[in-house]
Structures are given as structure tokens and as C-alpha cells.
């Protein structure tokens, strides 16, 4: 799912480009100590690994194969900041060396494939590990859940970006349901692959798995002192159950098509056009709100920035409040 040029309009592309550049600058800044101590070779090799790993086909049943996307795996292996840099470099090389993904869409692709999934995955991993009181057997399930969540969240953000800067007006409900629904299935594949690969690394070289490193005696004893509230656990459980039900439901509709977006396009074609009435309710979907003027277009772009940023912030705050609640109940 590398967005090409021409799929989103200029203001949205510039907005996502600016945001992506900002995040990359932040990631480079936060990773600078590690980079200066351990050099740029390790992240470079990790990027080469993700790039090559994406080409390995995994059999996922019914005669189809899937492949790794890698953001959650990178987050687990090398942490959020280096992980963001690693995934970004993969996306940049794919766009510029292989023409896979547009040049004006580079910012969009960086947000959707590198920045957002790495951070969502890292957040989920930390949260689950905290809830599981940093027990080592929780590492692989945490990474799997994180991989599962990171894919539909990107699809959700993509839907938002499309509604702001997409060329064709579409019913919001239908687009969102198809995009997120299908990507829940892709998320399941990503979760299974991430879990299996991470499990293999953990078995051979647990010291190389960043997310498993805080599981030192010190931290686990600290965690043991803070009993976790049942409500937090139930939130996660309910969320997971819901996602699985939705994902399972959509999977019944799934064809053998390996590409999510293509499938979405097809499934949209089967949707009842009665859904139209639902969609009109969203003011953002209605481009005419701003007219065709340049001001209108840039306003849409600005809202695009605010929207994407709000999603990221909301996730960050949700994680923070959950985790502080978990730790403040000592």
C-alpha cells in the first residue's frame, strides 16, 4: 500500500510531507545518542533486513501468501526512534530507487508506513508489557497485538487523509468500513508473522530484542509493586475481542486478493448505494464546503494536518493516561 502521486491533492501532500519531515527530524534528534555511540551501520543493516524481509512470502492459508510490513517488528527490535528512521529509510528507498510510492506522496507514505505504525506499535507493546507486569512470556503476544493494531490505525488515518484530499467523493462510512475492515485482516497476518519472527529472534538472541530489554530484575520488581487495575485489562481484552469479531466478520467477505486497497475497491463496488445518505453527514467529506478556491484547498490541507496530528496525539494521550493509571495505583 504505497500511495502514488495523484491520489491525494497538493495541500494534503504538502501537509503530510511537512509532518513527516518534522517527525523524522524529531526521531533523528532522539536517536542521536544511540547513533553516535553505535554508529549508523546497525540501523542501515536493520533497514536492509526489513527491505529484504518484506520480499519473503509467508503462506497464510487458502493458497495465498502474505508478507511482512515490518513496522511493529522494527519497533520491537530497535525501539521507536531508530525504528522510525529504519522504516522511513525503507520507504524513501522504495520511492526513489524503485519508483514504488509517489514523490509528492512520500510524506503520506512515511506517515502511514513508517511513523504512525512504529509509534502505535511501540505504544501498544509498552502498554501490554506494563499490564503483564513485564513478564517475559508477554513479549511476543505484546508485539503481535501491536502489529495487529498498527495496520488498521494506518488505514484509519489514510481514510481521513483521503476524505480531506482525495479526488473522488466517497461515502465516509463505506470507505472507512472497507479500509479498516480489510486492514484488520492484513493486521492479523502482520501479527502472526511478527510474532513468529520475533519469537525466533528471542529464542536465539534475546539480547537483540529492544522491547525485551527493560525486563530486568529491577523493572520487573518495580512493576510487581504496582498492581494493575482490572479495568485496564478489560479495556484491552474488550478491544481485542471487538477487533477480532470485526476482523473475523470481514474475513468472511475476503477474496483471495493479496492487496488490501484493491480489495477495498472491489468490496466498495458491492456496497449498497443506499449508504450514500449516511455519508453526507460528514462535513469534511463534502469538499464543496470550502468551494474550489485555493483558500478552500489549503484550509482542507490545514485540517488534514490537524486531523492526523490529533489522531497521533489522541493515541499518545490514551496510552499515557492508561499507563499512568496503571502505575499510580501503587
Amino acid at each position, binding site marked *: 500500500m504505497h500511495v502514488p502521486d495523484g491520489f491525494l491533492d497538493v495541500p494534503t501532500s504538502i501537509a503530510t510531507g511537512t509532518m513527516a519531515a518534522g517527525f523524522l527530524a524529531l526521531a533523528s534528534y532522539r536517536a542521536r545518542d544511540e547513533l*553516535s555511540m553505535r554508529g549508523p551501520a546497525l540501523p542501515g543493516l536493520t533497514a*536492509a533486513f526489513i527491505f*529484504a524481509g518484506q520480499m519473503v512470502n509467508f503462506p497464510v492459508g487458502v493458497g495465498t501468501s502474505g508478507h511482512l510490513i515490518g513496522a511493529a517488528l522494527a519497533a520491537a527490535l530497535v525501539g521507536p526512534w531508530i525504528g522510525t528512521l529504519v522504516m522511513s529509510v525503507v520507504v524513501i*528507498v522504495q520511492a526513489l530507487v524503485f*519508483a514504488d510510492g509517489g514523490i509528492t506522496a512520500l510524506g503520506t507514505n512515511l506517515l502511514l508506513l513508517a511513523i504512525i505504525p512504529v509509534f502505535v506499535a511501540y505504544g501498544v507493546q509498552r502498554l501490554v508489557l506494563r499490564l503483564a507486569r513485564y513478564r517475559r512470556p508477554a513479549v511476543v503476544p505484546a508485539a503481535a497485538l501491536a502489529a495487529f493494531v498498527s495496520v488498521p490505525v494506518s488505514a484509519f488515518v489514510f481514510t481521513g487523509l483521503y476524505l480531506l484530499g482525495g479526488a473522488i*467523493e466517497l461515502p465516509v462510512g463505506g470507505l472507512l468500513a472497507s479500509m479498516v475492515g480489510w486492514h484488520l485482516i492484513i493486521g492479523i497476518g502482520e501479527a502472526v508473522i511478527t510474532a513468529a519472527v520475533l519469537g525466533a529472534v528471542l529464542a536465539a538472541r534475546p539480547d537483540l530484542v529492544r522491547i525485551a530489554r527493560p525486563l530486568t530484575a529491577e523493572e520487573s520488581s518495580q512493576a510487581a509493586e504496582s498492581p494493575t487495575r482490572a479495568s485496564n485489562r478489560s479495556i484491552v481484552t474488550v478491544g481485542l475481542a471487538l477487533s477480532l469479531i470485526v476482523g473475523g466478520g470481514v474475513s468472511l467477505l475476503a477474496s483471495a486478493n493479496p*492487496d488490501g486497497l*484493491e480489495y477495498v475497491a472491489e468490496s466498495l463496488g458491492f456496497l449498497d448505494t443506499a449508504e450514500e445518505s449516511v455519508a453526507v453527514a460528514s462535513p469534511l467529506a463534502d469538499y464543496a464546503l470550502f468551494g474550489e478556491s485555493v483558500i478552500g484547498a489549503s484550509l482542507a490541507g490545514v485540517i488534514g494536518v490537524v486531523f492526523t496530528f490529533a489522531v497521533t496525539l489522541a493515541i499518545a494521550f490514551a496510552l499515557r493516561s492508561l499507563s499512568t493509571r496503571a502505575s499510580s495505583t501503587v
Partner: protein
Amino acid sequence: MERPSARETGAIPAHPKLLSLIVFALSVVGVSAGAWEALAVHAVIVFVVLGLARVPIGRILRGLTFALPFVVFAVVTPLVALGPRTEVLGVSVSSPAVDAALLMIAKIVIALLASIAFSATSSAQELLLAFDRLRMPSTLTAIVSFMIRYAVIVGDDVRRMRIARQSRGGQDHRVAHFRAIASSVGTLFIRSYERGERVHLAMLARAYDGVFPAAAGRSASAAEWAVALSPAVLALIVTVASHVLGS
């Protein structure tokens, strides 16, 4: 205007070409609905560049497959899009969406052709020099450099592991073999990581002190800038003109 030969196009340093690609793609994306003439000019420009650069047809076709899912998306969306309906071949579709879909497909294909022209005429090394010239943060350029250098080697590892699995009766399309594939990918990470550590040692052994040197590269002459930027400037003028004339 004197046209550059294919050889010259390939020899121009990548940074003017990269800048040119960005401006060109923005010009294509920025064309407003109905301005088909502008897109037609863009198409001519990109075909002329592809022709002059002698980009092989196979490479162009392979590159175009990246657009496929999105073209399918654009074809299907008029069925469900909003707006007044019209009949095409007996199917009810949204009429503004048909125009929008065609426009989208045209933009995607033209911009993708431009990206193919860039990637086909710029080697990975030239790209690194371009990053340097365009003031990309040096840490990021260094990571890209290592990734490009070692992607081939790690890719070879992938191939060797697949052959090793197959030699021992592994069948990669069978779900039962999922775990074997996963563990070979896990091994791939460990090997890559350990190689990363060794490369870092090799750098330290050659007096690396935290500053990754810029690869040696030459700057572009004024003439090269002019040649590289001419398609982009032309495209930009066409897009701006279509906005001015269209409003």
C-alpha cells in the same frame, strides 16, 4: 532548445533531477478538474524524457504495475461515489466521479512515469550524492547508504535460505512450513544485526569518529541544472497557466 542525448541525461548529477521530479510531480498533481490540456502536455513531456533517456520499455511496464491497485480503485469508485447519477454501459455511476476518476488515473500514471524516469537514470550512489547536496540530515543519508549497500547481500541471504529450505523438502506455499520460514527470517535479522556490529568495528578500525564523510561527488553545472529542470519548469508553467485561464 538543445535536447540532451540519452547519455547526457544519465550523466547529470541526481540532485537537479530529484528537484525536477518533485516540481514535476507537484505540477501534475496540482492540475484542477477539467484541465485535460495541461495533463496532455505533461504526458508529452514525460514521454519525451523517457524517450531521450532511453528507458527500456520493460522497466516502464514493470514500474507501472505499482499503480494498478489505485487504478482499480479509481475505476470502481464511481459506482459508489456521491453526486448525480448517470448510466455507463447500463450501470448507474456518479457522473462527477467518472471525470474525477479519469483525472486521477491520468495523474497517477503520468507522475509514476516521471518517477520511473528518475529511478531508471539515477543509480543508488547518485541518489546518495543528491541527498547530500540537497542537505538531507547526514545520519539519514548514512543509514540509506548502508541500507543500499547491504540490501543486495541480505537479499542473497534470503535466496540462499530459501534454497536451503527447499533442498530439505521445504514447501514455502504450505502453511505447515510457516514456522520454518519465520525462523529463517529471524535468523536473517540476527545475521544482519551481527554484520552491522562488524561493519561498525570495521569503521572504528579506520578511525571513524562519529562523522560520516560525504561521498565524493561533483556539483552540477548551470547547463545541467537547466536541462534537468526544463521538464519541471515547463510542467509548472502549464499547470499555473491552466489555473489562470480556467478561472
